[in-house]
């Protein structure tokens, strides 16, 4: 019985937060579209600040993780490919892996842990301090003020961060192969022949999509913060966990779609 009622409660909670999410997405879409009519309503200063925090300040970690990722991937796969004497194909594997999947994925997870959490905590603190109420009674929409600049910043920061992570990953791979006596020119030749424009653009588009998800989920969690002692902490945790789940699920769906369409 307890299990049943627990399940019911859980289901009810899920239903309500889904309704909240729908409403949030609706409001965001409306406010976003209304920018077409009045572009000056976009809070450009807030956007720049959020973009700078998401991109410039996150560059070091994304590049570093990308580099390590390339290094490790190359090392592990080279060990296997070496027994066939074809360790140069590590370059092909790395190119496809990084550009299509791992570059956007890993960068998005880093973004969730850095910026998504910051969005949730910032907005959550504002909510607890009644600042969101203050906006509302001034007749200003919190979504336009707080959500749009941050979502735009996260969406646009992702491709920048991803490119850096991917290039760093390739450099990591090149170093491993150099150590295994594959000349760097050969490595780059393989990278060039494997990488297609479609692959790169697809990866970056995916990066933008993930960035948008992280931004939206971060802001949504912040706006739903409860005014309790641990409210902001709960919101921040929820932001990271839900972002990572959303990214993984979206990536999975995209992978299946790509497989079906054979691209």
């Amino acid at each position, binding site marked *: 019985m307890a299990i049943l009622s627990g399940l019911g409660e859980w289901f009810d909670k899920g239903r309500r937060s889904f309704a909240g999410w729908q409403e949030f997405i609706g409001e965001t879409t409306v406010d976003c579209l209304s920018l077409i009519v009045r572009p000056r309503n976009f809070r450009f200063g*807030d956007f720049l*600040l959020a973009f700078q925090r998401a991109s410039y300040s996150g560059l070091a970690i994304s590049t570093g993780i990308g580099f390590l990722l390339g290094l490790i991937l190359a090392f592990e796969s080279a060990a296997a490919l070496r027994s066939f004497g074809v360790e140069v194909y590590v370059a092909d594997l790395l190119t496809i892996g990084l550009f299509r999947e791992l570059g956007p994925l890993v960068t998005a997870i880093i973004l969730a842990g850095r910026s998504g959490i910051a969005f949730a905590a910032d907005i959550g*603190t*504002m909510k607890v*301090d*009644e*600042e969101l*109420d*203050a906006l*509302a*009674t*001034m*007749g*200003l929409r919190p979504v336009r003020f707080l959500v749009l600049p941050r979502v735009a910043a996260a969406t646009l920061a992702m491709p920048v961060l991803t490119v850096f992570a991917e290039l760093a990953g390739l450099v990591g791979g090149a170093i491993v192969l150099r150590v295994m006596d594959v000349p760097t020119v050969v490595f780059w030749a393989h990278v060039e022949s494997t990488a297609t424009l479609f692959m790169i653009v697809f990866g970056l588009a995916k990066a933008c999509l993930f960035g948008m998800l992280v931004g939206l989920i971060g802001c949504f969690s912040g706006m739903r913060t409860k005014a309790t002692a641990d409210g902001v902490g709960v919101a921040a945790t929820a932001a990271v966990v839900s972002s990572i789940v959303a990214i993984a699920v979206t990536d999975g769906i995209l992978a299946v779609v790509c497989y079906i369409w054979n691209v």
Partner: protein
Amino acid sequence: MERVIELRNVYAGYGRSVILRDVTFDVMKGEVFALLGGSGCGKSTIMKHMIGLNPVLSGDLTVAGMRWTAKTRAKLCRKIGVMYQSGALFGSMTCLENVLLPLEEFSKLRRKARRARAMELLADVELADAADKMPSEISGGMRKRVAIARAMALDPEVVFLDEPSAGLDPITSASLDELILRLKREKGMTFVVVTHELDSIFRIADRAAMFDKARKGMVALGTPAALRDSSPDPFVRKFFNRRKTDGR
């Protein structure tokens, strides 16, 4: 006299939890109306209904003859100014930018004139020299005064102040009272003020409503002097006569 805010049999609260039952009173144009009561009795709750943040649980609440609905919201927001209990300044903006924000969004003034107006508002609350400070760099009392300046920015018809003088020294608190009285006199503004300060109540309030947490409702309504001198309710008398016991 014209009624600005009308409450008829309002049940106040959040979702399913009722905080105050069956509240009925009016706020007249140009008066200072005080909301009194102990901590946690629901003063902020009823104020949140009046400023349209939360819908009333039942009953009828109108501001300037309109209920809070999606249609009237934009219009009503322009008629009110609110100072929240915590100040609720935007932490990422300086004090001046906080006061400028409503002007930038809604007034038709030019850039220079907007700045001048914002500085004037800050000077009104005696904080012209804190204009370029961030809210985190000033004291709680100063933050409240900046919040009052922000609430006044667009010359609203009704100004809601949630505990404006809590945490202020007696002199600043008295000068705030004078500011309220001046705005009432010169601009005919209406004020709804939550306060605990007896001195302040007698200085500024034309009428007051008093709430009791235990009875979950309004227990008195009238001028402060009438509440003090002739209320039949022991709770109300105790509230007004604590002056004698706590030596103030």
